[in-house]
């Protein structure tokens, strides 16, 4: 927690570079799985950011779908195809979508916050299903993105999208770590613990929670943008409550201590989902549930607590 910011950034850049190099060796199925892990992990990282302030959004599908649909429309209708630009646009649109609701939601805590976010995402789901111009319940396809004005060759598309997802996830992970260690990040944790005390120390808890919600929305939109570029298709299910539930699943699995743990948890979810659906096609959700129960039983603070405890243990031994 008290590492130097520069060390955090250097570790993040080295980790990202290693993953980019590793990508050249991965089989296609694992490349796609990791791309989706990175995209979904960014969304869950936003939830973790809110969890550090003591609230859990059950409606992150709202911004995931918002970013995804915006990117697909930009590509298909406006001809904007650059993958990096689209990712930024997805995040920006999602943040703009969240902005009007953020000050209201920032006043709620606990189950009220969770249910309000869930309600918003389901309203969007209902609108998307009924909007024929957006493909209704079937959704629509998106053309393949470009990178710096260049068309991505078929043979390289998997790796390029993987590289973009990993690079953006790496950059956002570094920024999230810097935020967690900032004064605002520490005050977020304090709000989780004792909001009354924070208010009586002169900080506006509503402003902190508003900012957290908008940042998480940006991450949700960016994740949605990366996901649709990898999938090539978007549908209202992006906003359905089960999709939001998976992001919460990853956040609980990861815990709120570690940024890296979020991506590890996201990767684990994709692995379990992938293998479970192959070997137990009708009961893979049950496999996921059992997996979560085991983690909650043995690692109640999430898998991020593993290396937090290890670091503390090492510090105590030194």
């Amino acid at each position: 927690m008290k590492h130097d910011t520069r060390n955090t950034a250097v570790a993040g850049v080295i980790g990202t570079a290693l993953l980019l190099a590793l990508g050249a060796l991965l089989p296609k199925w694992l490349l796609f799985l990791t791309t989706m892990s990175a995209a979904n992990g960014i969304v869950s990282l936003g939830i973790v950011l809110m969890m550090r302030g003591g609230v859990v959004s059950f409606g992150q599908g709202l911004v995931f779908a918002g970013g995804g649909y915006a990117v697909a429309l930009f590509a298909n209708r406006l001809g904007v195809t650059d993958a990096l630009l689209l990712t930024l646009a997805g995040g920006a649109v999602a943040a703009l979508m969240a902005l009007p609701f953020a000050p209201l939601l920032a006043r709620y805590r606990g189950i009220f916050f969770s249910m309000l976010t869930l309600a918003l995402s389901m309203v969007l789901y209902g609108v998307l299903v009924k909007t024929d111009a957006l493909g209704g319940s079937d959704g629509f396809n998106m053309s393949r993105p470009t990178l710096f004005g260049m068309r991505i060759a078929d043979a390289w598309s998997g790796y390029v999208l993987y590289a973009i997802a990993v690079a953006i996830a790496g950059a956002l992970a570094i920024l999230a770590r810097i935020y967690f260690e900032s004064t605002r990040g520490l005050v977020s944790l304090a709000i989780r613990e004792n909001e009354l005390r924070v208010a009586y120390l002169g900080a506006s808890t509503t402003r902190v929670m508003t900012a957290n919600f908008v940042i998480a929305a940006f991450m949700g939109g960016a994740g949605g943008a990366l996901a649709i570029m990898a999938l090539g298709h978007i549908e209202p299910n992006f906003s359905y409550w089960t999709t939001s539930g998976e992001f919460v699943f990853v956040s609980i699995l990861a815990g709120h201590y570690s940024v890296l743990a979020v991506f590890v948890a996201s990767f684990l979810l994709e692995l379990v989902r992938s293998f479970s659906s192959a070997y137990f096609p009708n009961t893979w959700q049950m496999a996921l549930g059992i997996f979560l129960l085991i983690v909650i039983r043995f690692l109640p603070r999430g898998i991020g607590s593993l290396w937090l405890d290890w670091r503390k243990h090492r510090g105590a031994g030194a």
Partner: protein
Amino acid sequence: MSAILCARELSKHFGAVVAADQVSIDIAAGEHVSLIGSNGAGKTTFVNLITGYLKPDHGEILLEGRDITALGPTQITQLGVARSFQIPQLCAEMSVLDNMIVAAACGDGALSFWKRAHTQATQQRAHALLERFGLNAHAARRVAELPGGVRKLLDIAMAMTHRPKILLLDEPTSGVSTEEKFPMMDTVTAALGSEAVTVLFVEHDMDIVTRYATRVVAFYSGRILADGTPARVLADDEVKRYVTGTAH
């Protein structure tokens, strides 16, 4: 001496219960005022009205001439009114040092998205204040593990982080053993030391009141029963009858 805090005809009702009834009081800068009264007399309600936790049904509150009646706790704290609580309000899972750094960050204006919370400067500042309150030995300890008296001191130390103009202490010695009460109040008084801070403290122990207050305000049924020097107020017949219970 000019008044730093003025309450004008403050009234607050909770249904049929009158928690504050036309309470008017002027507090001069530098005073150490003790608020006494039996349970339900309106002391904590008065503190909660001053700090914005409750809004009065009627009346106004002026801080250095500025009307703060409609402001919330955060804004009032930013204007220089800090408080501690009867039950210390701390971040129990954080360390003592982290609590102090949170306190420092909250009062430093706009919170930064990238400026690190834990720097050498913030830690030195936190340690310096902890030292004044005799809490440095506990700096690395988790708050949940601390004894009650230490938590009380930490609660006050956090409130003092930004050198408030007015410090309100809600029963600073409640839950503290008899032997620890005086040393604790001595520590607080020494820590306030040269700070030109006006202190209002709610207290039930008349020995503490006599020793540490320069002025006493006695409450009964939401009204001010008596106001003056400790000797005069504690000798008042009505105060003896309704507050201290020493009337014969």
